[in-house]
């Protein structure tokens, strides 16, 4: 099923929660979904008979633009052999996105990584703590405005 068909199908079910669709771009087409509805939308994408997105291929955090962070979901259906890219924006002032760990268990560590490096808070995540960096690290280093600390535990960090 093509992304436009999927989008139309979702439009019929969800009156709110879906953003604009972008197909006229050099990369894979995608559409936006709202951060507080993403868990319901993903559950529908997984369970609907004609969609059956049974695999979360990747979940990534992105420093999207001046005001927003984003989470990008790459979904694959092994049953129907189709794929989908879904994005959700979260404002930098309060980046909260609903977790999808209840939909795909694979999201657990991916969301922890997005929290660790970008600083997105996933509401409802069972164990949201750093996964790569040390526990006492300050800040989220893949943000564009991140400044490297002078020292970490007495070790000089810059060259």
């Amino acid at each position, binding site marked *: 099923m093509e992304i436009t068909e999927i989008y139309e199908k979702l439009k019929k079910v969800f009156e709110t929660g879906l953003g604009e669709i972008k197909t006229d771009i050099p990369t894979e087409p995608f559409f936006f979904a709202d951060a507080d509805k993403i868990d319901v939308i993903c559950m529908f994408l997984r369970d609907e008979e004609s969609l059956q997105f049974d695999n979360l291929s990747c979940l990534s955090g992105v420093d999207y633009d001046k005001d927003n962070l984003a989470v990008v979901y790459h979904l694959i259906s092994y049953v129907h052999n189709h794929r989908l890219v879904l994005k959700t924006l979260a404002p930098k002032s309060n980046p909260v996105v609903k977790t999808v760990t209840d939909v795909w268990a694979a999201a657990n560590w991916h969301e922890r990584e997005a929290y660790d490096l970008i600083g997105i808070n996933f509401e409802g995540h069972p164990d949201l703590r750093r996964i790569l*960096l*040390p526990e006492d690290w300050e800040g989220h*280093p893949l943000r564009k405005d*991140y400044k*490297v600390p002078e020292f*970490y*535990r007495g*070790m*000089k*960090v*810059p*060259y």
Partner: protein
Amino acid sequence: MGILNKLDYTAEKFESGNIIITSADKLLNWSRLSSMWQMFFGLACCAIEMMATSASHYDLDRFGIIPRPSPRHVDIILISGTVTLKMATRIKRLWDQMPEPKYVLSMGSCSNCGGPYWEHGYHVLKGVDRVIPVDVYVPGCPPRPEALLEGLIKLQEKIRNQSIAKKTA
């Protein structure tokens, strides 16, 4: 006779009577440099070269360099790869657990000076010598097994010239 041949450069031999006279320094240094047990520990792609050096083709065993699983057994630690800040705290801890005399060989650009991460690596320690004292630096990215062997032989030379009476480092 093996021992006699190895001690040749240091010792006086008496032809009959199986007596060797040598100095304590030379005997200690000879025994230390001939059995540099190594911390079993790899960090990044350099570790692959280190493993290749340990394996049969280059055969570190012939220098008496045997990987050991505990820092309490070892004489040298090969820092083979990128030292992240998270790992640096562990390296310091391993180093503190090693018994004296102990030596460090820093292998590859990353552990020498940060390597390709020198500017944009917020997570990389820019040289392991910021945490522990390094005896020999081996350049390369990663160094060939021959380069690593050269570094280990340099370390053997350093040990050969040590003295228990005066501090060298």
